């Protein structure tokens, strides 16, 4: 568990250190609907059945447990 937090902390540090400032008028590609940084509505049922049929859940915008008769 400690290792996990160590790697997550390392990843955050690298991300913050290596980014560049992008101006609003330079965000044509980033603002594309298919560049969204989350699961899309059309993936909703897939996220649900993965929650039922697999032991792992969470960190994907879906539920991490509870709310349905699933794991």
């Amino acid at each position, binding site marked *: *568990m400690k290792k996990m937090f160590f790697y997550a902390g390392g990843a*955050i540090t690298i991300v913050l250190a290596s980014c560049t400032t*992008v101006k609003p008028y330079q965000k044509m590609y980033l603002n594309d609907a*298919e560049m969204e940084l989350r699961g*899309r509505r059309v993936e909703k*049922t*897939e996220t649900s059945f993965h929650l039922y*049929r697999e032991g*792992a859940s969470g960190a994907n915008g879906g539920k991490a447990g509870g709310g349905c008769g699933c794991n």
Partner: protein
Amino acid sequence: MKKISLAVLGMYIGILGSFSQTGKTDSANYKSRKLKLEEVNIVSSYYHQEGEHAAATGGIGSEKLTDIANTIELKLYHYDKKYRKRTLSLEAGIDYYTSASSDKIDPKTISSASASDIRIYPSVNYSIENEQKGTTWGLNASFSKEFDYVSRGAGISFSKLSKDKNRELTLKANAYLDRVSLILPVELRPAGSPRGDDNNYATTARNSYDASVTLSQVMTQKFQLSLMAELAFQKGFLSMPFNRVYFSNNTTGTEALPGSRLKVPIGLRANYFLGDRVILRSYYRYYQDDWGIKAHTISLETTVKLNPFVSLSPFYRYYTQTAIDYFAPYKTNAAASQYHSSDYDLSAFHSGFMGMGVRLAPEKGVFGMKKFSMLELRYGHYNRSNALQSDVVTLNIKLK
């Protein structure tokens, strides 16, 4: 020459001025405060699975299941006196499913209540976005009901956007206070217990709490990513009461799992615009819990834009997990064990999920209907290493 240079400089400043943000005036700040419908989303899906390790029959028997799900979401918004955007999202969902294994809970009934069931799940989200401060506060509430399960959920969220709008930090916390009906396999019920469609089963609590933090970051003009870390804790009756376990000494019991579970998933999502027509969407998650599961999920979707309004998105997802400490197949669990399960969803396996999506978002609306702004259709085939296969088709329609 000086005059020409000054004229060019003047023109340059003029052009820059026309692109720059104008000063704050009353008319520039004006935003209608009337409640407006932002969009309507309708999602319909069909899911079908086949397998041979049903948990209700102790790890053997058909896992055949069909689920038809429909949800509709209405998003409304208005600006308040302080020009904060208040958004209200109302969602209602209904699932109809049939399950061969649930029918084996009480095979003596012609059609037990669980063989087919309807699940309804309304939810409401309310958020207040302060565009000047870059903050968004949100509240949500949800409800879900099916024959043997009732859930009541509530949550809170907070987002903060950096000044340059290239970084966002989101914090979320949710709680689900659920009730599980204690429906035992028919042969294990005490005398006088309810049967069939009677709904007088005793219930017990299953509570789930989770907190998550998400950091989204723009890396370049074509690359952005987000990191997600979540902590989820469940407490209460976490087994399924009707899941049989056939022990090695030829006796039968029901699934027994610990009364608490701590889950820690960490995810990374990275999207990259390759050239002008291709988007690479990738996702990785590491998951660990205190029941013994360690899992890796990795997925890659490649969106190819045939033109600005039509795109195709083939995708592949790979998943692998270790088993919980209490899993054993049919007739191999020890009767003396405190915890035991033959649910293959909690066994060691790996799976592949692949398919294709198509998205239409024409400028003049789908089929020329201006309000019909987007249509997305997606198909996927799922193949699990322990003989479970499924297919899912989903249609998403957006009206604006």
